[in-house]
């Protein structure tokens, strides 16, 4: 019996979607299943097989204690650099976006254009000049060599600009000015409380950008105790037997890392961002402005 034409078309579309879904999900599923297995099981078992919780605990303990709790040190460093940079990015981007969107000053358009240009520039392009600058002012090797550049976040300025210019009615600010508020208090008491969703959004993007940044910390840090997670993960790859067999001959006293350990390290590295995302998402979805003005 022939399949009717319209069903046939739907089935084709469904099949294509399923293939793509599988294509993108398989690596993620594999990653989360990898620490449940031993290195040998990883090769012999099905990619989607679940090993055991005992292996998970073992892998977790091994990777966390590896090389004098290096992973925890990197995690702490990442947190300092990223949250410091994110705080700075929010402090700068939110007022900047507000100023660009809702106030008038000479050079406003030029500043907006510059913001856009800098936004589309690859961050890597600035790493070398930043390195020279940090070295000159004596900040190289300190946390500020990462926090200060992470705080420079033109994309956040642009997001805040879009938000303020599209969602805050100008009459609301006018009302506050007439009510006796000066420019700072208009921002502090009216614009800022209404900007919670954009503070969350800018904060989240700034956090992800600095948390995942590899090249800047690669240049700015030189010591295991200063590394953030992204640099640390690269070190771990170098210490993994299957990727670097020459260094790890059998019988060596050094703790040998295997692929499941590495997968566990990666999961630990992305967990904080995932957790922050869950909180930020709640803040993003809020109908703060309903009822401000009658449409």
């Amino acid at each position: 019996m022939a399949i009717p034409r319209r069903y046939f078309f739907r089935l084709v579309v469904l099949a294509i979607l399923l293939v793509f879904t599988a294509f993108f999900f398989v690596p993620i599923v594999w990653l989360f299943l990898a620490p449940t297995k031993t290195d040998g099981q990883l090769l012999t078992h099905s990619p989607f097989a679940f090993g055991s919780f005992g292996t998970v605990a073992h892998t977790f303990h091994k990777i966390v204690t590896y090389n004098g709790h290096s992973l925890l040190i990197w995690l702490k460093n990442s947190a300092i650099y990223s949250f410091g940079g994110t705080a700075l990015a929010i402090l700068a981007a939110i007022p900047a976006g507000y100023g660009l969107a809702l106030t008038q000053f000479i050079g406003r358009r030029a500043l907006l254009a510059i913001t856009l240009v800098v936004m589309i520039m690859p961050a890597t392009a600035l790493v070398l000049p930043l390195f020279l600058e940090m070295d000159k002012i004596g900040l190289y090797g300190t946390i500020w060599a990462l926090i200060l550049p992470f705080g420079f976040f033109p994309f956040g300025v642009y997001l805040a600009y879009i938000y303020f210019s599209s969602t805050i009615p100008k009459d609301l600010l006018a009302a506050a000015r007439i009510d006796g508020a000066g420019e700072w208090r208009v921002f502090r008491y009216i614009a800022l409380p209404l900007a919670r969703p954009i503070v969350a959004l800018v904060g989240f993007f700034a956090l992800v950008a600095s948390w995942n940044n590899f090249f800047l910390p690669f240049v700015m840090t030189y010591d295991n105790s200063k590394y953030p997670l992204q640099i640390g993960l690269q070190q771990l790859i170098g210490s993994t037997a299957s990727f670097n067999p020459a260094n790890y001959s059998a019988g060596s006293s050094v703790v040998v890392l295997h692929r499941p350990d590495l997968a566990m390290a990666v999961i630990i590295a992305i967990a904080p961002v995932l957790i922050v995302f869950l909180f930020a998402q709640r803040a993003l979805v809020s109908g703060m402005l309903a009822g401000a003005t009658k449409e």
Partner: protein
Amino acid sequence: MATVTFKGATRIYPKSDRPAVDRLDLEVRDGELLVLVGPSGCGKTTTLRMLAGLEHVDEGAILIDGKDIVNLPPRDRDIAMVFQNYALYPHMNVAENMGFALRMAGVPKSEIAERVRAAAKILDIVDFLERKPRQLSGGQRQRVAMGRAIVREPRVFLMDEPLSNLDAKLRVATRAEIAGLQRELGVTTLYVTHDQVEAMTMGDRVAVMKDGLLQQCHTPRALYADPVNAFVAGFIGSPAMNLLQGTVEAGGVRFASTVIPVAGGVPKAVGEAVTVGLRPESLSLAPAGDGIPVIVTIVEELGAEAFVHAQLANETADAVKANIIARVEPLAAPDKGDLIHLHVKEGSMLFFDAQSGDRIASRS
């Protein structure tokens, strides 16, 4: 208590060659409710925003109690404004909205609470003090916006079409309420609207604007009876005054083949063009052969009165097909298509220059 004086106040928007407000001279007297009225784009809202300090004044001065305030920021002008869209702070509850100005002024918390409560009582919104603006109906939000203005006891109230977002019935009720409240508080008020009925019913005086220029400022009755030009004559009154283009003849005005006799004579030379203004209530039904023959096109029956829309009979030229509206007794209302005769009440005709629209001499 305060007086507000505009002295040649001008606002020219960037990239515009025509001023939005052109050398405005206007005085709002102490305790008065002055209504600014005009079609959209006439500059009335710009005028209000100039007084509020939200709009730059390019030329001239604006004085409150004789002191030029043009260079003062809005917060130092001691004025309160009710916005068309209310502009309530969405993240604050009603009490916080109303008390915001007092909080900015550093008034102690207990006094803020007391004054907010007193204002809320006047406006009958005590039950909503803890609610957020989004939990209120349009009418309630409007009251909160009013409350936010009165709680401050400012020198001047500014109102920018505060009723335009309400439905028709609520608008009429609130109109009277605002006018009553203003008189009770005695605060000098500048009120902007595009609705001439609102202007006439609420204003102690009404200022009519058009294209950035003040046309006339007077009491509602004087504006209605003695408009200075054809624009004011046509804008004030509902239905609008009939404005007919004609030519002066000896003893009357000719509209194509119809001649309307003018008892007192026309203040223009014979043969000159003139615009004749006639209020609908100045026209009445006359016996056949006496008065102007017209053909009825529409009859609007409103119960207490009826309005007859008609065109001059025997006239086909476009120039004289102008619609004439007459108010008649509902029981005597003719039917559509009837030939009727309209009598012009003596002394009720107004004459305007056909080109400039300016009023010519007195009525006849």
